């Protein structure tokens, strides 16, 4: 299939960049190429990865979600509030976190579809609102004292960190869903040509609502995972996480205009950002230069990728 071909090309260009960066890092440091470090990278990218998968859905519908970071904080706080030891079963805080995220996402979706307000404005509003709510609910203080059952979510299962398993599961499900489900294809159709989709009987509003809601749900998951990892519901956590997530998705070839993009691309984008962050730290590059180098590699990678995909 042609979609596959083109994705392979995309994939190939990015893979090449990741490979080159990886090779350089293996030569330049003696720690990059180790199981321990790979586990580290995997663990470090998992939260951004979950967010990126979620926001891929929204971007595919030609929307955007700037509220990711704040909603991560809000869901983390919500989750932590119900996670004090001995109060509730471990499922309660998890459900609360997921629910909070999904609710925020659905509110975004409703405002976008029923309200007809541009996604940029809606989610920018939600970004401020969710941050404010996180501070209000927590009284501006980190919500600590979380039960061990919940913080165990940041631990390992069969030697693999649970956040990594979450990320992998989410990514695999999203990949399968977008390819093989009717709703998945409708997401592409809505993003590709909203009027055409509507004229063909695609329930455009429901599709968008689903995308925002799902993105919110996954953001809630990221919030829960982050809270478990840092054993706190931190009301000021997740600053600018949306930028890293959206960057990963766009690097992975998803168009901000909607209708084009894949989960595999998103994964590669997440991986590239993760490897750069990890590698530059390993090499001990000063953080000021890190910023410059990271910017250059990201733009360069996308440039190479698109050039190569075009040819």
């Amino acid at each position, binding site marked *: *299939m*042609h*979609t596959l071909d*083109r994705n392979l090309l995309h994939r190939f260009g990015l893979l090449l960049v990741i490979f080159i960066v990886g090779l350089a890092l293996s030569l330049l440091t003696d720690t990059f190429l180790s199981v321990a470090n790979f586990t580290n990278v995997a663990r470090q990218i998992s939260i951004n990865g979950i967010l990126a998968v979620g926001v891929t859905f929204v971007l595919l519908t030609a929307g955007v979600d700037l509220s990711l970071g704040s909603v991560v904080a809000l869901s983390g706080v919500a989750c932590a509030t119900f996670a004090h030891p001995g109060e509730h079963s471990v499922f309660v805080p998890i459900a609360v976190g997921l629910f909070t995220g999904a609710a925020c996402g659905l509110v975004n979706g409703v405002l976008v579809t029923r309200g007809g307000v541009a996604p940029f404005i809606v989610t920018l509003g939600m970004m401020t609102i969710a941050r404010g709510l996180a501070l209000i609910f927590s009284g501006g203080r980190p919500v600590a004292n979380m039960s061990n059952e919940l913080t165990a979510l940041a631990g390992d299962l069969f030697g693999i960190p649970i956040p990594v398993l979450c990320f992998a599961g989410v990514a695999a499900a999203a990949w399968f869903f977008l390819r*093989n*489900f*009717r*709703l998945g*294809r*409708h997401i*592409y*159709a809505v993003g*590709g*040509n909203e*009027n*055409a*989709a*509507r*004229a*063909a*009987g*695609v*329930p455009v509003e429901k599709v968008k609502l689903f995308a925002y809601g799902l993105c919110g749900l996954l953001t809630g998951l990221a919030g829960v995972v982050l809270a478990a990892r840092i054993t706190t519901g931190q009301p000021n956590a997740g600053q600018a996480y949306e930028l890293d997530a959206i960057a990963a998705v766009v690097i992975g070839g998803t168009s901000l205009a909607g*209708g*084009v993009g894949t989960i595999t691309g998103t994964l590669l984008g997440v991986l590239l950002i993760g490897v750069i962050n990890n590698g530059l730290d390993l090499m001990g590059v000063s953080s000021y230069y890190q910023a410059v180098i990271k910017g250059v590699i990201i733009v360069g990678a996308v440039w190479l990728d698109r050039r190569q995909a075009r040819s």
Partner: protein
Amino acid sequence: MLRALELRKDFGGLTVLHPTSIDFLPGEVHALMGENGAGKSTLMKIVAGLYRPDGGQVEWRERYTEFTSPHDALVAGIAMIHQELMPIPDLTVAENITLGAEPCSGFGLIDRPAQLARAEELLGELESDISPTRMMRTLTVAQTQVVEIAKALGRQADVILMDEPTAALSDHEVAALFRAITRLKARGVAIVYTTHKMDEVFRLADRISVLRDGRLVGTAPAAELNPSKLITMMVGRELADVFPVRHSPSDEILLEVSGLTREPAYRNISFQIRRGEVVALAGLMGAGRTEVVSAIFGLQPASEGQICLKGKPLSIRNPQDALAAGIGMVTEDRKGLGLIPALGVGQNITLSALCDYGRGPLINHSAEAAASESQMTEFAIKATSPSQPIAQLSGGNQQKALLARCLLGGPDLIILDEPTRGIDIGAKAEIYALIQKLARAGKGILLVSSELPEVLSLAHRIVVLRRGSVSATLDAAATDQETVLRHAMPL
């Protein structure tokens, strides 16, 4: 079975459809005729659930219904082929055809083999060889239209509204569509058919309704009408011969194209256009006509070959170069390469020639307004004002606005790619007259058209393309449709 009852539609305080009632019967082809902007598409869109009426009702199977979305209408059994092509560019042909009605195997999982089979079946019904796995983006306009038709046929609807389905098609596909329509009729499907092609109406329609300025002029069985009667109903007056007489061109060569090549689309294309001459590029769909003229206009430069205008060799890398050299073009892809939807009609018209209306980098607003208004009058463009966003105009009026844009700069060579697509018969006659007038004024005209009668009566010479190569150059006065087709058909 389906009945429009006193349907009315307003846009921004302007009534574009006055209360109109029409009955549609099963197994009947009901043609909806009228000039550009008469309200045909508006009526159909209301019935298909895309617009909400501002008055009146739709009666469906003896019951009043209000469709709030196309989804409702489709579920009820009403499908529509839209005048405006609506591809989802990054999905496959099969996915576009089955959009909204994907064959599923439980849980909303798409049954891919069934989807492909369905698409093949529908395309087969239209005798098209488009591969269902191709990306929609790679299709030509005509192929896109075939897919749109297949999409509507696939809905198993009891009513199919067809809004200018053949506007971009050539004879071969049109014939296939007609055969499909005959089969649908036999199954008892009601067809509502809108077109600007007179011959089609009389080949297909059982009854004809005519709209003028948003009002129903009348409904009559097709057998009771003839083309001139119908035209009188549509236009409100009689129309003289549509095709004006040709004038003989001068001997001065205006354009000389030699050895133009860009594999795999076309190769070794050579022809000349003299001042005052109309040269037509004919060929089947996908023969590469659009690509050749795109190269001359710099939209997609050729890899080899030479273009000489007025004896001077040109190197055209983009449309800017072409415009500067005195070449203008009306593109085939109105929406993709023509309209700036949010800008007003007037601003769309003056876009290419903006330098002529101002001093230095500044725009002289009154000069610009004067220019756009005179163009709008000259081309009889129906719009509330020059600042009405062009996206709100009817398809035919959009096309006229683009023609007006092309001619405003006063080019020597005018390339017209399907210029009369979607244009009503009256306006067509005006455009034909205009083409002859331009020719008389010493311009050269390169015409691409899928309508052979148009080609035969307008052009002096016909260059026939077959799979990207010139298969013949014919003298229009001394040839006929069969000869052209014979040269166009793949061997």
